[in-house]
C-alpha cells in the first residue's frame, strides 16, 4: 500500500475522524528510517488504547509500531488477551480470530500474500501474549518455526494470564503464587527462547522494553530476517503491574530490575549464520545510504 491509498476525498475530509486526518497528514508510512524517535513528532499508528494506566505493554506497542520497517505493507496477527484490546486501534491491518492460533493464521496469511503479491514485500508480524504463545498455542508456535514460515513472532511475556485476572502461565516463574497456582507454580519458567533456537528460528531475542532504541533495533532485525530468511522470535517482558502488585509508575523500574545480568530478562540474543550475514549487508547498505545523504546535504549547503 502506498501512502496515496489513505488519502481522503476532499469532499469527505471534514467528516473523517480527526485521528484519520492525522494519519494522512503525518503518519510515517513509507518513511525509510522510521523509528521510536518519530514518537511525538508524527502521527503514531496506534490511537488511544484501553490498557491500564502505566501498562508496559502500551509502551511496547508504541515502540513496535514506530519501528516496523514497512508498516504500509505489514499485516499483524494477534490473539485473545490484553493485546486484542489494542489492535482495533492500530493503523495496520490486523487479524484477531481465536485464542492461541496466531501462528497458524500467520502461516496461511503469509503464504496467501506470497501467492497474491509475488515479488512484493508483505511482512507478517505476530504479536500475542505468553498464554497464547507458550500454552494454548504452543504447537502452532513451534510448528510454524519447524516449517520455516517467514514471519516474526513477538511474545509479550507478562508471566501470567493478565486479561483473565492473573492465572498461572507456562512463562510464570517457579514458586510464584497466583490464581490456579494456589501453592505456588511447581515448575520452571518455560525456556522458549532456547526452544525457539532449536526449532529453527534465525533470530531470537529475550529482553524487556525498557529501552525504546533497543526495541527498535530488535524489531527491525526480526522483521528483515523473517522477510529474507526464516522465522524470528522476540520475547519481550511487559510486566502486568496490576497482577504483580505494582503501581502505575513502577512498570519501568520493574523492567530495569528484571534485565540485570543475573535476572531472567538479561539481554540474550541468538542470530543464525545466514541472518548474521544479512544484518551485515543491511548495515553496510544503511551506512552507504547515510553517507550519500550526508554528501547530498553537504552539497546542498555548499
Amino acid at each position, binding site marked *: 500500500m502506498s501512502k496515496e491509498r489513505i488519502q481522503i476525498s476532499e469532499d469527505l475530509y471534514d467528516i473523517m475522524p480527526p485521528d484519520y486526518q492525522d494519519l494522512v497528514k503525518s503518519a510515517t508510512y513509507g518513511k525509510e528510517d522510521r523509528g521510536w524517535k518519530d514518537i511525538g513528532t508524527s502521527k503514531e499508528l496506534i490511537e488511544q488504547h484501553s490498557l491500564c494506566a502505566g501498562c508496559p505493554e502500551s509502551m511496547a506497542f508504541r515502540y513496535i509500531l514506530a519501528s516496523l520497517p514497512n508498516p504500509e505493507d505489514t499485516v499483524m496477527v494477534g490473539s485473545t488477551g490484553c493485546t486484542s*484490546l489494542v489492535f482495533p486501534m492500530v493503523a495496520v491491518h490486523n*487479524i484477531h*480470530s481465536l485464542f492461541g492460533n496466531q501462528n497458524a493464521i500467520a502461516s*496461511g496469511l503469509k503464504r*496467501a500474500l506470497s501467492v*497474491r503479491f509475488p515479488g512484493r514485500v508483505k511482512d507478517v508480524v505476530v504479536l500475542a501474549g505468553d498464554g497464547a504463545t507458550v500454552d494454548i498455542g504452543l504447537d502452532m508456535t513451534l510448528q510454524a518455526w519447524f516449517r520455516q514460515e517467514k514471519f516474526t513472532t513477538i511474545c509479550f511475556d507478562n508471566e501470567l494470564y493478565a486479561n483473565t485476572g492473573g492465572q498461572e502461565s507456562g512463562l510464570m516463574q517457579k514458586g510464584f503464587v497466583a490464581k490456579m497456582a494456589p501453592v505456588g507454580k511447581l515448575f520452571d519458567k518455560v525456556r522458549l527462547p532456547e526452544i525457539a533456537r532449536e526449532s529453527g528460528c534465525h533470530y531470537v531475542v529475550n529482553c524487556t522494553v525498557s529501552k525504546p532504541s533497543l526495541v527498535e533495533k530488535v524489531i527491525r532485525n526480526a522483521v528483515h530476517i523473517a522477510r529474507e530468511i526464516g522465522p524470528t522470535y522476540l520475547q519481550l517482558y511487559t510486566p502486568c503491574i496490576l497482577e504483580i502488585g505494582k503501581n502505575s509508575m513502577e512498570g519501568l523500574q520493574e523492567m530495569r530490575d528484571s534485565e540485570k545480568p543475573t535476572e531472567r530478562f538479561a539481554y540474550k540474543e541468538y542470530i543464525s549464520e545466514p541472518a548474521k550475514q544479512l544484518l551485515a549487508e543491511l548495515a553496510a547498505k544503511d551506512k552507504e545510504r547515510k553517507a550519500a545523504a550526508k554528501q547530498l546535504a553537504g552539497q546542498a549547503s555548499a
Partner: protein
Amino acid sequence: MADIHSVIGTKNKKGQTYTDTWKLMNEAPRTPSFFTGSEVIKEALRRASCDVMIAYPITPQSEAAALIGELFAEGYIGDYFRGESEFAVMSQCAGAAFGGARVFTTTAGPGTMRAMENFPMWSGARLPIQMIVTCRGINSPLSIQPDTLEIAYLLNTGMLVWHAETAQDFFDWILKGYMVSEEPDVHLPLALCCDGFFVTHTKDVVNLTPADMCLPPYDPYRSPVPCMDMECPPVRMMRDPFVMKSNYISYATHASWQQEIWAAVERSRKHSIHWLNGLIDTENTDAEIIIVASGTAVSQGREAIRLLEDEGVRCGLVKVKTLRPWPEEEIREATKNAKHIFVPEFNVTGWLAKEIKATISNPERVHAGPRVCGGMTMPPEIIVSEIKTALGMKTFSLAGRGS
C-alpha cells in the same frame, strides 16, 4: 484491483482458459470418466483456480488431500502444505482467506470436531473457505466408518452446509460452491459434506468439464469486509473494543453481527437455487408416502422405492441438497400430500428428521428412520421394512430383531 470479468477468455500459467462459470458448468462439453470420489475432488480442484490448499491426514479424506498435493506439484494450486492438526489447518485456512486467497481444505469426523472452534469464526469473519467433509464416526470407541453425526454440529456454525449424494454432485458443487460462497451478499464458508467411503472410495462415472477450462479467480475486493492485505486503508475498527464493554452498544453490535451472518445464509438461498437448480430434488411428491433424505441415504431411498413399486406401494422422494440454507418452503410444499414421511439417516440421533419435524405441519407424519450408525450400511430392504411396518404390512424379519 483485479476485475474478474477482464480475465474471462485469457489463459492462466497452466494454459487453462478462465471461463464464465455458468458456461463452464452448463454449456461446456462433458467427458464421462470412471473415477473414485477422491479423484473427482482432485479433478474439480484442477478447474477451481484455487490459491491455497492446506492438508492433514485423516481417513477417509487423506487420499483426496494428497491428490490435491499432486495438483500443487503440477502447478495448479498457488500453495499447499500439511498442517499440524485440524485446528491448526482451519486457522491456516482462515489466515489465507483473510489474506485474500481462494482456499480449499478437506477433513473428516474427529478432525471436524477438533477444528470446530474455527467454524463460527470463519463465518463471523466472512471467509468464503470451502471445506470438504467426508463424514465418518466421531465417538468413542474409535471408528473410521461412515457416519454423518458431525453434520449436526456444523448446522449452527453459520457456514453453508451442503450434502452431496454422488461423486457427480461433488464435482459440480465444488465449483458451483465457490460461486455461491463468494457472492458479496453471502461471503460465507461452505462445508460440502459427503458420506465417507461410500462417495470417496467407490468408483463412479462422472461427467467432467474440459480440463483446459477453469473458474475465474477469486476477487477479494468484492468481500463485504476488508481484505487483510494492506492494499486498502487500515481504518480504526472501533473506538473501544467491544469485548471490554458490558453495555448496550456492545451487545447490540454483537447481536447485529450474528444476525447479519444468518441473514447472509438466507441470502445464499437465491444463489444456491440458481446454481443447484433448487435446494431439493423431488420425485412423485403426489404419493402418500415420501422418503426425505440427504447424502447417500438418497440413493438407498431410491432403491427402496423401486423395491416397493414391485410390491405395488407407491412412494415419493425428496433429496435435500442444502442443509444451510435450509429448504423450509420447499420441504413443506413437497411433503404436503404425504401421510407418512420416512427419513433414513446414517447417524444415531436423526438430526435430519428433527429438522424436518421442526419445519412441517403435522410432524407426527415423520417416521424418524430407519437409522444406521457406526459404519453400518443401509440396505434398501430396511427402508422397505420400516415403511411396510408403519403401513401395517407384513414384512420379513430382520436379523437380530428377534421377531
